[in-house]
Structures are given as structure tokens and as C-alpha cells.
């Protein structure tokens, strides 16, 4: 459990979009995983199964709260020369949260499983029970949308990105 915790939390954090919901989602996800262990079919990948359960639990928790990720204001001006590192990190989090928030849930899930957990397309396909071709196209479309969002707010990109 400790081995998977950080990834499950990161998935929930990105899917939920804020710390408060991410904490609740993570708790629900962990409980769902341990309670579902007896139903786990040992013939399949445990990782795929665990993240499927965790992702679904997180999405259910968000639906139960009838809450989408909390909107964040991207119109934040940061002085790239004077802003402390911590501030830049927080602003970066807000940018990413805001961009992911605007994604469709299906797109958000695949991109999170790919870029945070590092799942292969085959694993994501098993995890979400969708064809691999769908995984590939959803990831691509999600990335295009995210890149558009970041390009629109490019002047507010944190200095670590802008001056790379």
C-alpha cells in the first residue's frame, strides 16, 4: 500500500484538482482498493486493477460531492524575477489544475494515468476498459487541448518554464 500510495495520491490530486478533494478521494480510493482485494482477479495486472479501482473511487467521490474541480483564477501575475520559488510552484500548480479542470473527465483520466502513473497504453486500456486506439486518441486530444490552454496563458507561465 505504501508502495502505491504516492501514485494513487498523485492521480487523485490531478483528477480532483485541489488538495481538499484530493485528500478525500485518496482516502476513498485506498479504502476501495483494500475492500476490493478479495474480488481481485489474480490473472490480471494488480497495478491496472488497483488504479482502476482508485480512479473510479475518486471520480465517484467527486460525483457524490457533485463538485467539479474547484475553479481557479489563472489571471495571476507573478513577478518572474522576485517571486519566491514556493510561490512559483504554487502558481504552476494552479495553472496545471486549471488546465486539467477544463478537460473532459475521460480525457483527464487518461492523461493522468499516462503522465503521472506512467502507464502504458495497454495498461490504461485494461484499467479503463477501453480499446487501445481510444486511449491513444484520447491522450493525443487531451494534450492538444492542454497545449492550447497553456499557449493562451503563456505569458503567465512560471519562470521555470518560460526561461528554460
Amino acid at each position: 500500500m505504501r508502495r502505491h500510495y504516492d501514485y494513487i495520491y498523485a492521480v487523485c490530486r490531478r483528477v480532483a484538482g485541489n488538495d481538499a478533494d484530493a485528500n478525500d478521494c485518496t482516502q476513498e480510493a485506498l479504502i476501495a482498493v483494500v475492500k476490493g482485494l478479495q474480488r481481485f482477479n489474480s490473472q490480471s495486472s494488480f497495478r491496472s486493477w488497483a488504479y482502476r479501482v482508485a480512479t473510479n473511487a475518486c471520480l465517484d467521490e467527486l460525483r457524490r460531492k457533485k463538485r467539479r474541480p474547484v475553479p481557479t483564477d489563472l489571471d495571476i501575475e507573478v513577478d518572474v524575477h522576485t517571486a519566491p520559488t514556493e510561490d512559483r510552484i504554487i502558481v504552476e500548480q494552479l495553472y496545471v489544475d486549471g488546465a486539467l479542470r477544463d478537460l473532459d473527465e475521460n480525457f483527464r483520466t487518461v492523461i493522468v494515468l499516462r503522465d503521472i502513473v506512467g502507464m502504458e497504453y495497454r495498461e490504461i486500456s485494461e484499467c479503463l476498459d477501453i480499446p487501445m486506439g481510444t486511449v491513444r486518441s484520447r491522450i493525443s486530444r487531451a494534450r492538444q487541448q492542454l497545449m492550447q490552454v497553456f499557449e493562451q496563458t503563456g505569458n503567465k507561465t512560471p519562470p521555470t518554464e518560460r526561461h528554460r
Partner: protein
Amino acid sequence: MTDELNELASAYVDGETTPDESARVENDTQAQITVDKIRRLSSRINSVAPQQDEVRENHIAAALAAFDAAASDKTIVVDKPDPDATQKIDLRSNNPAPLRAVPNEPQDQAPTSNGGYSDPNIAGLVGNVVPISPKPSYRWLAPLAGAAAFVLVLGAGFTIASQDTFTSSSDEASSVAVATTDSAVAAEARQVEQQAGSASASDAADTDADDQAESAADFADEDAAEVEEESAPAESPAPADNELLSFDVLPDDAELEMIGSNTELSTDFQFSSCATGANDPSGGELLGYLPIMVGGERGELLVFSSETGRRGVSVSAVDNQCQLLPQG
């Protein structure tokens, strides 16, 4: 740039393209620019601040408590406010009894009051480390053990009695063999002496003596063979403690005790992780109930003993995760 090329660039970043598709992306300047953008994008998404240690531990404790509760009829034993009494509460209840923090192990961090969770059950579990018994109680085991002991004693007595009877029979058979052999020698001597005389009596005595001697010899041979068989070393000597025996099916509630492995395990509650790179057999003890998750590397073999004898438990390694399974 077309959607198709975007998709190819995206798949290329993820290493999910065929050689032809990879070559196509690498030969397209625009696709290469997109590849760089996607890599930066992925890096930004991937950067998630780690969870606070205290919240992390609370999450794990609550999940383990839920697991234990689910494994014991949805109830957990907690201390009531009255320190002298304990009670069982139903996790499904909306109004659980007030819980009191009773850590079962020394903890580095004191639990918080409610962990910030709205669900009262979860909040209670998070805020209170529930004393979890790592081994479910099997009350039916006591009478079963008694019955097994009785059967064992009965069987041992029967075995001893059988051996005594068999020994007596063997002694008698040996006596018969000696006697009949002597009779045969005597009969043969008489036959030589008498030669042509008393042919019928001699033939009868010879026949009887031969038959008896033959029977006794056969019995003695069988006896000797059995004795030899008993004294001979077993074909399958007892294996070493850390030798993997077989992949037998284990019952779901099998109590397993780890007696050897080719890696080193930590024994944190029922969930443990394999420390990679350790090759020496570990004598650590891991008590748990299936299913047990053990993180580890592919190819690890664990040997467990159970109430019904030593059993091999295969480690199914998938993507560097391994899980103990009840069968190979």
C-alpha cells in the same frame, strides 16, 4: 499539422509507435516541435507535490482499519470511553460509538482528531488508530484441534498395536520356518538313508516338508523384504526448510508463516514490501491471511508453512509487483 500527426507525435513521446511511425515522426520537423511541446507538457503535469507525511499515514491507517473491519464481519474492536470495557461497532452504522485513540504500536506521529474527513466513520478511523488484531480469531480451531489430537492418539495406538501383532506373527513365522527347515533336512536325510525303502511314507514326508519349508521361506522372505523396506531410507528425504516444495492450493483462510524466501521482507502488518537486492534467505515471520500483497520484483519465491504443512506460494510478478497467490 494534422490530427493524425499530432496523435503520432503523442504516441511517439510515450514510446507507443511502430518503427515506421517513429521514422515518420523523426523525419517531420513540425512533428518534432510537437514532440518537444508534449514532453514539456508531460513534465508539468507530472509534477505533483508529495502528500504530507501525517496525512499519508492517516490515510494508510484508515485504509488498513477498513480492510481489517471488512475481513471481520464489518466490525472492529475499539476501546470505549470507559477504559475498562471494549465493544464492537458496526462500521456501517451512521452513529458509531465514540472512538478513543489506542495505538497498537508506537507511532512517530500522533493521530489528528479527525483528519479533516466529513465521513464520521472515516474520520473516526483516521483520528483513532484502531487496535487491530493481526490474526483473526478462529474459535472453531480449539474443538477441531481437540478432535484432531484425539484422532492422532487413536491412530498412534492403532499403529502400535498393529506393529505388535505383526511382530508376533513374524516371530511365529520364523519359528515355523526353522522348524520346517529342520523337518525338511531330516526328511531328506531319511530319504537318503532309506533310499528305496518306505517310498510312500518318504514321499509324503518329503512333500509336506518341502511345502512347509517353501511356505515358511516365502513368508520369511516377505517379512525380510518388509523389514528391509521399513529400514531403507525414504526415497524423498525431508527437504530443507527453505526449499520450495510444491504449488498446492491453499484455502483462502490458510494461516501462513513464512519460513524462508530468497529476498528480505519487511513485516509491516499484513502489507509488506520486498526489499530488492537481498538474496540471503530471510527467517522473518510474516503472518497474514490471503490475499496478501507483497510488493517485490519478478521471480521472487516465498515458502510458507501452514497448518496443513509446508506449501509453496508462488509470487505472481506483474510489472514489478508481486502478489502471493494461493496456488502456483
